[in-house]
């Protein structure tokens, strides 16, 4: 099966029913998407497919064959982070950091489509994402910082 991830094409030999998350983290050894609940409840496994933030833990790999998949690694690197990642770095918006994959990618996909979203709309867009360290104050500050720059 052929997967397009972060601009590269990979051939993987897996059961088509395998959740996309396992293929990304085990077969491609990507570290961005994470297993949080396996139930699509927390957002830790989020990836962007066709501009949509989806939950890779409940997405069979077969269903995204050939589609362009973007993971957290696909946005930027430590040396050259994406502006949204940079905003999170500037705001030091993490504690353990396990959830930031879901937070950053969900915000990114939403703001790509809604660059002029209000604070309330952004909050609403993130209502299905969790952070158990409760780094909410900094995360929203980072997202607002980025959103303002995008809207300009």
């Amino acid at each position: 099966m052929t997967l397009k991830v972060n601009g590269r094409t990979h051939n993987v030999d897996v059961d088509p029913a395998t959740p996309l998350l396992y293929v990304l983290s085990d077969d491609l050894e990507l570290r961005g998407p994470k297993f949080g609940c396996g139930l699509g409840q927390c957002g830790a496994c989020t990836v962007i497919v066709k501009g949509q933030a989806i939950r890779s833990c409940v997405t069979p790999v077969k269903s995204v064959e050939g589609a362009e998949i973007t993971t957290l690694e696909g946005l930027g690197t430590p040396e050259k982070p994406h502006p949204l990642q940079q905003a999170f770095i500037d705001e030091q918006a993490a504690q353990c950091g396990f959830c930031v994959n879901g937070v950053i990618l969900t915000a990114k996909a939403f703001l790509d489509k809604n660059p002029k979203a209000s604070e309330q709309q952004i909050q609403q867009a993130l209502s299905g994402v969790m952070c158990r360290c409760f780094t909410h104050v900094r995360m929203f500050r980072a997202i607002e910082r980025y959103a303002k720059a995008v809207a300009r």
Partner: protein
Amino acid sequence: MTSDARAALDRAGFSRRDFLKTSGALIVGFSMAGAISENADAQGNFAGGAPGSPPANQVDSWVAIGSDGAITGYSGKEELGQGISTAQTQLVAEELSVPFDRVKLIYCDTAYTPDQGVTSGSQSHPANFNHNNLAQACATAREALFRLAAERLGAPVSDLSASNGVISVKARPSSSITYGELVGGRKFNLAVDPKAKRKPASEWTVLGKPAKRPDIPAVMTGQFEFVHNVRLPGMLHGRVVRPPAVGATVMSVDESSVKDVPGLVKVVVKKNFVGVVAQKQWQAAQAAEKLKVNWAPGTGLPKQSEFHDHVRNQKPTRDVLLVDSKDVEQKLGDAATVVKATYLHPYQMHGSMGTSCAVADVQGDKATIYSPTQGVWHQRSTAAMVLGLKPENVHVIFRRGSGCYGLNGADTVTYDAALLSQAAGKPVRVQLTRKDEMAWENYGNAYVIDERAGLDAQGNIVAWEHESWSPTLGNRPGMTTPGNVVTGMLVGFQPEPFTPRTPAPEPRAYNNNSNGVPSYFAGRVGGENKGTGTIQSERSLLHNVVSPFWTGPLRSPARLQNTFAQECFMDELAARAKADPVAYRLRHLSDSRLREALESATKTAKWDARPSPKPNSKTGVATGRGVACVAYTAIVIEADVNQDTGKVHVKRIVCSIDAGPISNPDGLKNQAEGGALQGMSRALGEEVTWDDQKVTSVDWATFHSLPLGFEIPKVECVLLNRPDEEATGAGETAITVIAAAIGNAIFDATGARIRQIPFTPERVKAALSART
């Protein structure tokens, strides 16, 4: 060991294992032995450490300087996401007068780092930043470097200064020598000198300033290696099959039920431990799902709706008396008014964002284990027991897991991975399912707490009694008790025994780790007042009983529950005395630091001084403010209570915090902000639930944590810096006081007092209807 840590070792120019053995290593020659006794006290019980651990009283156990001048710090306190590795890096850089990025910190690896017990209980800051351990080792190293430089430069120590890893003669800066030239790649071979002088806070240039966490760029870009991302050559994937009910035991396992699962390597059964190993994670998940296990029924559970009465009446008990002035009954008899109230706290869970995970490679009589455990040495010792190996043959390497906030599934999943790897003879990665994590954690303790106090005619408190009941079972595994967590128990180890004790012995020393002594008590033990308050007639008695569920430390264990009750009760007393809750607190507080924290928070919040409740209509949205404090944190909140729906919305949080000298102001703020909101989630929604056989709060639909999308309150933190005081912990401050502040704000807004956590809309509505 992470790749950058390995690079740091390489740069330092030696093999760490060889280095720590005296023989063979190059040693710096000192003309004067550094005034050292062998038993230099390194934080009491860790002076010796586990057998085979680098000795805590030796400088070389804590710091090494490479030939290029690169500095490596070694710590037994790990980065869980709380920011301590950044602060420790600042500490090493400060004491050795080098820039922050010259220092690499290696922590919690049984091959390399000293045994500092468990990274828990807000003890990392006090353990490593005061007069022992990492701070004192670095101060000793600094003095040694100055002595060596004095010889080499032919100038007295007092004429030298250090900057950027270079020591020079102040009067002629061209006369200088680098650390690398002085000791590079060699051992100090020096005991930690308890008299070595720490750099005074007034001279700090790295400590005390906001430092950016070095791990954050990798975290934000998906490059950071969590334990979940450890991949070893030939690694297989395991899953466990936990019992369907509490106390259920294995009767038989039908291996043929999974014979068709592709990639299945092995079904593993050891007493009541059941697991599967497969080539791929998805295959392991399917095998675990399909495996037919015939379980004997569970032992049954007490009814949740009657659980708090069950706890209060349970026998036997283990009793602890913290203070007792022996005159409480008499003073209560003489009081003008006696006030009584009972507060209830549920079991709550750590509920880590990612389920717990570990990777183990057990080959013959040796094991290498990557674990998110908070105690690598404890894990080494107990994993050895579970595997039947010698502890010295088990190498435990800490890798960060998802934030744990205490004893989550980290230790138990490490045993899971080790057992499955041993059975398969290959490296095995295990990550728990959400349900397995939530149904079998060591929960934070449930509590029943009675408060009773007497007021005189002027409303002053003349006597107060605090009495609590809390169920316990299991704990951290420690060095010898793998049965304290579920996997250890399933393979046949027992949890630490419950030893009844009643009546409680008289207190011999003041110990308020549990916050069982309210802040307003004089805390008189052994003829001395050790508390922070003025109340002389005082009694605090705690009872433990046996829990049907596993329990263990969850952020601010016991402290959060006791303080919730006491700080709500203090508000009830203030209301009874018709006094402003802040003024009333100050009237009964003697400790200047706690008073200042309280005054600072209320001043910043522009506290509206008046008695509670505020006159309000009994319908629609009512707004109130609440306060709570405990040594040394105070919090003020503002909240809306929707009296039609029972929903509580916290709008503003002001938190003043005094943790001694501030090492990293931004890190401290992050802890206070996160703690306040996590405490808010615990206060408003979080509760473990169960039926007659099993836990039923097993995912995020049934255990109610606040998601990102709620209307986040405005959070303001006031950091009170105390450069001349001892460093204390910061992670368990805001979280300890916020539940009471919310409860007090609900009372202020509506006149309804809720004495049971969580403050769900149903409970709020019930309390509102009960108003007279």
